[in-house]
Each structure stands twice: as structure tokens, then as C-alpha cells.
């Protein structure tokens, strides 16, 4: 599936990702009010990945609803990603997303570069449990919780989410990072720090998914640096039941979804597997 924040500004771009083979679409993270995000530079390419600090730009839930409605003629599942600072706001966004007929929700409690939001919420197990509990009480669609690798209490956070009856964990969000330009001595990103994604963070994601799989019984959606079918298989072996792709849309173009699916099939055929189920958690020893 398409990871949040990539090619999901409007209905047209999400439509194109569906046509390129994405099995599901996660929307960009939407808040209550419109938000412009940070000034540019918001994205910079580094040796082994991409560094970004978009700053959660979005038109607000009401206007974004119009984009989602345009997509409801297709049967590709849409997962509405939402961000908020507290449980009440999360509930109000979740109810609206459900009214727009999304198939599931992804709670962003892991964005590493937005004050008051994301990671600042997602590092507190009490708050995470309260948010997930409230959202679950008020909507009937599945609720996924997207977690950050930038915390020491990852296991506590995912257990809090499971206790609050979250339906799945999405791991990981980007890794907090920075790039300084030597000539000007300026951090390149306008926000100074940002989130690192792409190939470089795959081992971090695989480790997180593996640790989470040992700690909870709910399904895990793996994300972080998946660029090829073999990357996806590694995540399956670590315990993921499904995967998301973001930065690889840059590295391999929008057709990456079809390519990765083909590569997974080929690998499975060559190694005598018939279902992905056989691979999930295969690395547990």
C-alpha cells in the first residue's frame, strides 16, 4: 500500500497510485484546520535516503473530504491518516473520516517534526492509550496506530495501543535526522531537523517490527525503506502482515507497486512458498 505523505495531495494523485498497483492508499495526515507546513527546502536527498520536514501540510479535514469522496468510485481501500494533539480532536477527525467512507484509520502519533503533534503525542503511553480508546469507542472501522522509531519505549507504546484495542500497528515513521550545508553552515531543511526515509532506514524498521511482533498479538504493517520485493519479504519475516511504500516511489517511479508485487511472487516461487502467511514471522527463533 501507499505510505502516508507520498503522492496523496489530491484525488488525482491518489488515483494514479491506485492505477500503478497500490493495493491500498493511506492519505496524507489530515488535521482539523488547514496547515501550510514549513517553508522550503522541505525535502533533500542524502546518500542513502531522503530527508524531509514537510510540517504536516494539509487543507483540513473538511476540504480533504472532497478529495476522498472523488475516490469512492473505486474499490481500492483508503486508509485515512489523521493527526491531532489530544483525544477529542482525534475522535472528531476519526468520525469525519468514517463519514467520508474510508476503510480504516491510521493515527499518526509519530511524525518527527511537528510541534505538539505526532511523536510528541506518540511517546506517551498513557496518552496513546487514551487516544486509541476514545477513537475505538466512536468509530466502527479498523484503527491502525503508526509508531515512531525515535523512542526508547516502543514496546510500551504498542502494548498501550493493543490494550486500547487498536486493530494494527504501522511501523515505522521516519527517523529524526539533520543535514547541514558546509558552504553556508545552514541546516538545509527550513525546519532544521526532519525525518529520514528510504533504504538507509530499512534495518531500523525491520528491528522495530521484529520487537513489536514479540510484544503484541495484533497485525503489523511494515514500512520504512522498502524498495524491492526482497525488502518486503524481510519485513514479512520480521513479523509484518502487509507493507507500505513511500520513498521508493522516488527511487523506482510510481510503478514500484507493481514491480515489488512481482518481485515478491518471483522470490516466493523460487523459494517454494505459496502464501505470504508462511513468511510472516519466519525469523522468530
Amino acid at each position: 500500500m501507499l505510505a502516508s505523505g507520498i503522492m496523496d495531495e489530491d484525488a488525482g494523485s491518489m488515483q494514479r497510485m491506485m492505477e500503478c498497483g497500490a493495493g491500498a492508499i493511506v492519505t496524507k495526515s489530515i488535521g482539523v484546520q488547514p496547515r501550510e507546513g514549513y517553508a522550503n527546502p522541505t525535502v533533500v536527498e542524502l546518500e542513502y535516503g531522503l530527508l524531509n520536514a514537510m510540517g504536516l501540510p494539509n487543507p483540513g479535514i473538511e476540504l480533504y473530504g472532497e478529495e476522498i469522496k472523488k475516490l469512492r468510485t473505486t474499490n481500492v481501500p483508503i486508509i485515512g491518516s489523521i493527526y491531532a494533539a489530544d483525544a477529542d480532536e482525534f475522535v472528531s477527525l476519526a468520525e469525519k473520516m468514517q463519514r467520508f467512507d474510508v476503510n480504516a484509520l491510521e493515527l499518526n502519533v509519530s511524525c518527527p517534526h511537528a510541534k505538539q503533534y505526532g511523536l510528541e503525542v506518540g511517546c506517551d503511553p498513557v496518552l496513546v492509550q487514551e487516544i486509541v480508546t476514545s477513537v475505538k469507542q466512536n468509530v466502527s472501522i479498523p484503527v491502525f496506530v503508526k509508531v515512531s522509531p525515535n523512542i526508547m519505549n516502543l514496546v510500551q507504546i504498542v502494548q498501550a495501543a493493543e490494550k486500547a484495542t487498536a486493530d494494527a500497528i504501522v511501523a515505522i515513521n521516519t527517523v529524526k535526522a539533520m543535514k547541514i550545508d558546509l558552504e553556508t553552515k545552514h541546516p538545509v531543511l527550513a525546519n532544521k531537523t526532519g525525518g529520514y526515509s528510504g533504504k538507509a532506514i530499512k534495518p531500523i524498521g525491520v528491528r522495530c517490527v521484529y520487537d513489536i511482533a514479540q510484544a503484541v498479538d495484533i497485525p503489523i504493517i511494515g514500512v520504512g525503506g522498502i524498495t524491492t520485493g526482497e525488502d518486503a519479504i524481510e519485513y514479512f519475516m520480521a513479523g509484518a502482515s502487509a507493507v507500505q511504500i513511500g520513498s521508493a516511489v522516488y527511487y523506482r517511479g510510481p510503478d514500484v507497486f507493481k514491480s515489488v508485487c512481482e518481485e515478491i511472487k518471483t522470490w516466493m516461487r523460487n523459494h517454494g512458498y505459496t502464501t505470504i502467511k508462511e513468511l510472516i514471522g519466519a525469523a522468530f527463533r
Partner: protein
Amino acid sequence: MNNPIITPLLASTIEATDIKTITFQYPGDVIPGQFFMVWIPGVDEIPMSVSQITKSVKGITFRNIGDATRALYQLKKGDKIGIRGPYGNGFTLTGKRLLFVGGGTGIAMLAPVVEQARKKKLPSTVIMGVKTKDQLFFEDRFRQTGATVLISTDDGSLGYKGFASDLAKEIMQKERVDAVYTCGPERMMSSLLSFCKTLPFQASLERYMKCAIGICGQCCVGNGLRVCLDGPIFDGNTLKKVEDFGVYRRDASGRKILF
């Protein structure tokens, strides 16, 4: 690597009221119609179409209109900017008798493609549309290519009184034109497209951009067409299917802003 390269300005030249060209060292190839992301450290990073192409030096031309261009306008020779790119597809010249229609600062990025047409010995007509004569720039540069140069001003202070697209319509009725190339206000370009009917047409689009490498989705038009990567030059057949064209753009938050 899509990472800004720091380079000093070689020159900063006033072209007209509030319009400047800055040049910098860039030894790589650039196709007319492509753009750079120009970083003014501590201020902003903006997409700017290339207006000057020589082997080792490239230039951009802009109007002092927002925070980023105000900062760029004040930079002097030797001051440093960051450059990444070039990005986008660039123009593809087809046909023999070409019509170029530029509006406002959109005129600037047409200069390299008109110069390319001259190298290919293609007879060209250039329409330069501005609000008023004080805003006119690059007239001599276009005349030096041997192109027929026509000027339109909204207020009639010089040349044809009216929009460049209306002047273009008159030209297309009178003379043989094989293809039309345009950059300028989008409503002007969309009326031009409606006058062109089946005539080959290419327009350079401008959208708020963030990544410029085709992943963030900020600049998408129509069915996920990325202005930064699939454009900024789109042909008429594509644009006829883009509901945004000439109607709306999106601001940094993704809200639609009508033209």
C-alpha cells in the same frame, strides 16, 4: 544528488521595473523549459525556469514579488545561492513555423527555446504580452534571433492593446502556424489552447512546489500529473483533460485557489 549545490552569483542584471536576471556557473546540459530549485539559505527554496543557457553559465529571470524573490532581488554578484536540478521535461520543437506566446515574466523562459528554434532555422513569431510598456524586457534578445516580434500591452501603452492570447488568435487566422509554445498567466494559456483547436500546443505550468522530485504530490494537476517531473511542459491533448488548467492551483496546504 538532489541536494543544493552552493554557487556564487556571477551577475545580477535589471531587465525592467522589478525584474532581474541572475546568472551562475552550471556546467551541465539544460533543455529549454527545464527549471532549477533555487535555495536562498534562511529564506526559501523556489522553482525557477531557466532563462539563459550557455555551456557553463545558466540564468534565471524573475519579478520581485514575494519573500523569496525579494531576497533574490537584493543579492549581489558573489553572494551565494543553492541550486538543484535541472528538473522537468523541457520543450520539444515540432513543425516549421512556430508561434511563441509569453505573458509577463513567463516571457523569460521562452527566450532559450526561441534561440533554439533559430539554431534550427525555424521561422518564428514571438508575442510578448505585458500589462504596460514599463514591464517589457528581452525585446532586443528576441529581435536578435531574427524572429518576428510583436508586443501586446493590456493598457495599450505599446503595440497591440489587449491580451497576448487575443493577438495570437489574430495571427493564427492570418498566417500559417504549425505549433504554439506558451508560458504566462494560466488563464491566458487556456484561452490560447481553446483558439489552437488541434494545432500542436505546449505550455509551461507553474505550481507551488516542495520536493521537485515527484514524491510529495504538492504540484500535481489532473490525474496525478506532477508538474515537477511529468511537466512543467504539457501538450495540448494532455491539458484538455486537466480540469485544473486555467481554473485553479493549490496553495501550500493543498487548498484550491481559483485563478
